[in-house]
């Protein structure tokens, strides 16, 4: 990463670029990755609300919001989504944690 010179930095040590952490990839932290099994998904949005890393991609353009998948740049593979997925309790998980092949 290119370290900026003092003269190039905004004064007072502030960060004026709101939300630029989105550029920082934490996906490489993962050991396990959630696999999205779309046919089991009931689009309940539980995975989306419980994700610590805003890594559940949802399409809100239609009438009903649709779970689309995982934002792999940010997903840390914690598995909360897979644990909270309601269909999983009935044996039809829409998210399954698998060991990620690098």
């Amino acid at each position, binding site marked *: 990463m290119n370290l*900026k010179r003092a003269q190039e930095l905004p004064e007072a040590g502030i960060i004026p670029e*709101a*939300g*630029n*952490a989105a550029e920082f990839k934490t996906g490489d932290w993962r050991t396990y990755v959630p696999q999205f099994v779309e046919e089991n998904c009931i689009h309940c949005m539980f995975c989306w*609300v*419980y994700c610590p890393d805003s890594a559940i991609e949802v399409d809100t353009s239609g009438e009903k919001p649709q779970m689309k998948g995982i934002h792999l*740049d940010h997903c840390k593979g*914690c598995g*909360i989504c897979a644990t909270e997925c309601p269909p999983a309790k009935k044996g039809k998980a829409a998210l399954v944690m698998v060991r990620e092949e690098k």
Partner: protein
Amino acid sequence: MATNLKTLVQNEDLLTGGHRACAGCTGANILRQIMLTAGPNTVMGGATGCMEVITTIYPYTAWKTSFIHTAFENVAATISGAETAYRSLKKHGDLAPEADKVERMNFIAFGGDGGTYDIGLQSLSGAMERGHNMLYVCYDNGAYMNTGIQRSSATPFGAHTSTAPAGTVKQGKEQDRKDLTKILVAHKIPYVAQTTPFHWKDMATKVEKALACDGPAFLNILMPCTVGWGFPMELGMQVAKEAVENNFWPLFEVENGVYTINKKPKETKPIADWMKGQARFRHCFKPGNEGLLEHAQAWVDQQWAELLKLEEMTNA
């Protein structure tokens, strides 16, 4: 007010991914959930601690709204200053047009149990007493996590922490938890409540009520910590759920002094079951340490009985 996920999901995620929280951190999730309800017209303050550190490592910030951090013990004072400035600027007609248009500007301060129960208690009390129109959120993970899992006054009895460890002579924390929520109720502020990130609907409702009330509000939110408590990273929300089912962390509100318990478990689960799943309580299950489990159960039972009485008394 979004009380179903299909509506809540339409709101912008104002905490981005790419922050440095541990995998499975329920704290980051708490902040996300708060922001989904609070919205973009929010000034957020953070005390030094996990949440402040992981969201703002220069030159990155995960905050899409304005955010300020200054020190560990003073986020309530800092935000009370920003809130006062807002009122004064508005009164004098000196607010920037974008800010002046805003109907409700939210002022939220958050701190961990370290920055709230202990070192931050004074400035929190001062800000609440002065009546600022702000919300203080404590994410209670029961220890000073960011600096290495040291004991706080919020640490449960018997829990192993790095400064009150369980060893051969000592068995973890020797005091019961401080009841901070009651201290806040005693400030007679309009709104005080407890919630957890598992109970997203409860959380969204309470955040909205807290922000809508005229004056200071306080939310104490249980924050299961996978690293500090020692449980698998995928179970954070389940640990929160069970903490309500065994009355360790009752969900309740106090609106202008009147208590409402939001959830009364039909069958209270034993606290030992919950403790068994956390490495910080592992020593409590050694032979000879049964007293610790009994103490823990007695404390939870007493706390719950007290809460029921308070609900009855204040609704009379």
